[in-house]
């Protein structure tokens, strides 16, 4: 069985897995990293959203062989360390606005929100309602209103 190595939440790790196994299952079933959730494995619900080299992606739809040794994968568990704090400002905003209900989608929502804010910033602007309309993450509890409030507040606290 091939061995794969990549950077996961700041640490270089190695894992034995068949090449085609999607990263979501490598994280969850082989490495015990359960923050990214299984919601569809069809690149639709976005509950497995994590970051690769700082950009949002869906771990359910990437084969582990396509992750290189220098790629940096960040899951919700590693998000606070990217800002050197106990909680990322987006997580703080999520708490402040009491966004979660069941909580199943929320790790993916937070990871998508952070990337969306960074994307807007790179374009030299603040996040807009039109940007938020582009978020495809499903929340079956229907927390969308509070998600929108929290993303805007979290964006302010993320700084430039």
């Amino acid at each position: 069985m091939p061995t794969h190595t990549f950077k996961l939440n700041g640490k270089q790790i190695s894992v034995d897995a068949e090449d085609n196994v999607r990263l979501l299952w490598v994280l969850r079933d082989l490495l015990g990293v359960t923050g990214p959730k299984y919601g569809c494995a069809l690149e639709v619900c976005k509950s497995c959203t994590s970051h690769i080299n700082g950009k949002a992606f869906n771990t359910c739809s990437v084969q582990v062989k396509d992750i290189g040794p220098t790629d940096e994968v960040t899951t919700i568990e590693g998000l606070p360390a990217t800002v050197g704090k106990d909680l990322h400002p987006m997580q703080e905003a999520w708490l402040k606005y009491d966004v979660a209900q069941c909580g199943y989608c929320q790790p993916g929502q937070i990871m998508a929100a952070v990337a969306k804010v960074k994307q807007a910033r790179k374009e030299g602007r603040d996040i807009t309602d039109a940007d938020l309309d582009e978020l495809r993450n499903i929340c079956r509890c229907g927390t969308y209103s509070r998600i929108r409030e929290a993303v805007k507040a979290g964006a302010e606290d993320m700084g430039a």
Partner: protein
Amino acid sequence: MAEHRRSLDRPTDQPTGGRGLLGRRRVLGYLIAAPTLAVGVSWIANESDPRPADAAVPSLPQPVDIFDLGDLQNLAAAPTSGLITVELKTDGTAFFAVPRAEVGQGITTAFAMMVAEELDLPMDKVEIGLADARPELLMNQLTGGSNSMRSMYLPVRTAAAIARQRLVDTAAAHWGVAAGKVTTKAGVLSGPGGRTATYGSLAEAAASATTITVSAELKSPSEFSVLGRPRNRVDGHDIVTGRKQFAMDLQVPGAKPTMVARPPTINGTLKSINNLAALRAMPGISDVVGITHGVAIRGDTFGQCIDAIQKVDATWGPGTVDDESDATVLAKLRAAQLPMAVPPVLSQTIDAEFVFAFASNSPLEPDCAIADVRPDSAEIWSSLKVPIVAQEDIAKQLGLPIDAVKVHVVQGGGSFGRHLFHDVAAEAAEISQKMGKPVKLSWSRTDNFRQGRTHPMSTSRVRVNYLAGNVLSYEQRHTSVQTDFGHGLGEMITAFAADLPVGGNLSFAETIFELTQSSPYNFGVTTQLLNEVPLKFNTGSMRNIYSPNVVCAEELVVDRLAAKMGQDPVRFRRNFLKDKRLLAVLNKAAEVGQWGKAMPKGTAQGVGVHSEYRAAVATLVEIDCRPETVGRPVEGEAVTGPRVTKAVIVVDPGFCINPRGLEAQMIGGLQDAIALALTSSLHIKDGIPLEGSWDNYFYTREWNTPLDVEVVIMPNTSDSPSGAGELAVAPAFAAVACAYARATGTMPTYFPINHGTLGFKPLPVQPSTPQSPTDGLDHTF
């Protein structure tokens, strides 16, 4: 005008100062023999005293007016011998194992607030767990009907109050002072001379050597410092850090990922596996066995189970509804509609029929259960709202005594009705028994939509006779594919049939319909009846059973009546509503939502009102049906359509336990309602739903959600909380439908409005779970 709806204006619930000092209520419980302080309380049927209806109003009371589904559940809880217990540990924390399921509705937070309030303990010193199946609780371990707060508000507070009283008495005895001289605050006891002791330091001293009956006083609402104030979720931090554990996140030794290849039609059966050896030889696969409804595959990763599903060669037997499609089901429903009773004589008549498509109650977390079945015992982990029924059925299925089966209730990633059923846990047990190994079974997303539970298709026919500004009769005939109540509510009805105010030999479904449905209007002779067609779909409730569809149909007809009588919809409702609480929420919604303001062509306001669970709600929405909005572009597979741009929800919850949580439930209910009205349904074709992913089943997404949502919570009108979990869906569904009708000039009659156009390319029926994409790195942002 006399008010007769028991749900509203209950004088017995009005805050009073008449009971003891400060209006406090004395309650009973037990000190349980234990190493540290433990208090047990028996269930108190706090609302099981149906008040006689007074009938001095034009419409006679319907059964729900004097006794509703929640009352049935409370009645069923009353004689239960099992106690609920609050324990105090030596570290000063209080522990309470809730005999209910937390699925996002926020009950763990609300129970922590109750314990913190009556025990004078900080919230972070209260630990709430979910109780395993407890057979001795009989029918009192069912999470449903928005009943948890209503049935447990008094017992949980009672247990905490008794624990506090015992600590006070213990400290007083140690210090040799009168109990009246000891005070409690934030987990610390204080006495004369500056003496203090933490709760933890007295947890052992306060323990009782024998189980004895004791009493204590509950705080009066005027003394509350926790209850009624906004509190964030107790599990918020775990959620945002990814630490909250759902069934799939649990690490049970040996319980490897397991999935099932399923037949091409609903409830199809396995006849044979034609390539067993090849499947067993696939990478990462450890076990493959045939089960009743498929081929179970266990492996190192769920991904490899999905790989194997692609290769399954099986022969399938027929399912239970192979010949059914949307059109055949609708024809059967129409054939079964009960006749109207009142003929149109000397009056004008409105006749309308509404159709509501099948809908999926699947939560975001795919169905998951862990099972470890041994020759003489079994252990199950899953999100279960009726764990006792699960335990009984699984024990029977495995051929084990009930007490050999342990059922652990795990927090659920949503439920919406799905977790009333334990079919997934039972299947996990079947697989574990056949494989002789522990399994972590997950249904795939496609399984959930195609083989999971559906809210059944229904029609609602309404006939109204009116004359000279009066409504003479209102008749509603609701006809539905049979709803499955085989999860405990049925048992409750059988056990308490004689106590219910609905006569005759009604079916479970008819009984529940009569206990939940009532028209809020003075419309003369009013009858609302249910008939069911017994088709073998896998059905269940979905964030309420009948109300969203029944209320949507009624409110659309009310708008039409108003138009025929030349009245504004809000003014018309004011004239005909029966009770003051509904009138109050309607007036507030009209005020906050600026009812009647000028709106551009193609946009409109709509309003809907509803009372249930002893609460009253009014919803006012604005909808935009202009072509540029309807056709707004969204990348990828997506339904846009009309957009609800603003919503105001006004709720009178009786007593509001946690405004933050109540507001969350109202917002969630609104999003469900938008989906039911505009976008989400299952299309049944040749015995199976076409929907297979969230991009086929169009639950509300960010691009459908209103940008402006306001929830107004009315001042308390009672000392008792109402139900909230399902409350907001019906009035919001009605409001969106009414707004759509006013914006387009056409009353919609088939829901959701986009059901007639298939907005996606269906996934193949086989393999039953599609392969995952591999192009994720092409879509980063």
